[in-house]
């Protein structure tokens, strides 16, 4: 790698992994929480729905448990604070490395429109999948693996195994 590129280079992946691992240990030690993302997203959705239409939120089973189960509230908001931190941390890291700029990440062979439609569809699938599977890569798989939970390994097998199984059919998006 040339000196010009040096500032834009990514950190050594093992070192980045170590940092995330330490963040996770801290999350468990201080707050008894795993690092999660989808849980925080969900809280935002629930809180918004509840603010717009409390009666609906109370009636619908999906929201109800959050609206009426007060003991789960602080933990769920913990995830929201954590997510705000994630955004701040990402901005700090990107600005140090000079990666903070508007753009679209994609394969040069596809159009911006294709990429954005794919991103939206992918996001929707994640939204559904995380609710059904009880968490995403960080909250289900990584946190699950950290405490030797079977569900973490099932998630690992499903997400990455499934990913490899279908990667071929979507290769045009990436290579």
């Amino acid at each position, binding site marked *: 790698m040339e000196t010009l590129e040096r500032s834009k280079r990514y950190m050594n992946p093992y070192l980045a992994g170590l940092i995330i691992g330490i963040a996770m240990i801290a999350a468990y030690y201080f707050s008894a929480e795993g690092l999660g993302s989808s849980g925080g997203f969900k809280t935002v959705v629930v809180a918004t729905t509840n603010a717009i239409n409390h009666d609906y939120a109370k009636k619908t089973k999906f929201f109800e448990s959050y609206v009426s189960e007060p003991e789960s509230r602080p933990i769920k908001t913990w995830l929201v604070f*954590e997510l705000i931190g994630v955004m701040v941390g990402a901005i700090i890291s990107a600005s140090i490395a000079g990666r903070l700029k508007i753009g679209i990440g994609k394969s040069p062979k596809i159009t911006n429109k294709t990429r954005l439609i794919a991103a939206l569809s992918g996001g929707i699938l994640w939204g559904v999948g995380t609710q059904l599977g009880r968490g995403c890569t960080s909250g289900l798989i990584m946190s699950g693996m950290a405490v030797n939970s079977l569900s973490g390994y099932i998630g690992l097998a499903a997400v990455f195994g499934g990913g490899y199984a279908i990667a071929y059919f979507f290769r045009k998006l990436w290579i």
Partner: protein
Amino acid sequence: MGPLFSQGIIGEELNMFIGFLIGILFGFGLESGGFANTRKLAGVFYGYDFVVLKVFFTAALTAAIGLFLLDRYQIMDINLTFYPKTFWLPTLIGGLIMAFGFIIGGFCPGTSLCAASTGKIDGMVFVGGVFLGIIGYAFTSATLWEGLKNKGALGKVDIATALGLSDGLFILLVTIVAVIAFVVVTKIEAHMKAKHDYQL
């Protein structure tokens, strides 16, 4: 003895603030590892960039080893922490849906947030998609998902115990597998880079 919050040693507000700080560390690690770059993420499925695998396993194993050591030396009680309960069927099916989401969208929720906050438009669109997906799930949960969601409930299952191993031995085995994988994927990476000229 940890965890501090559940034992009332730190208050709710301090806990939130600590969550924020931990989030910063997490976000910093993700972004500097390259997780905000969708092509690096997708690379793991096409063999040209295995950074996801390296970061991911290093993080999970660091956490696992650290947590079980803390538990072993009674600095923290692992039984009092967040422990994903096992519902194998919904996790499997949800995981497969997420696999599609990963291949098509090129992010997972946490990484998309990093991408979005560092200016990637596709990341922002993805985050919007996640919200839409959750809302869609919410409005169809009673009719479509509720039955499936609680199927296959096994409770708290420790995979090591289920395999008849000690937690430490299981983690050691995973670590050894991971290290072998690290070596292999680095070779594959070099091979693919030489063969094709990918621009990240």
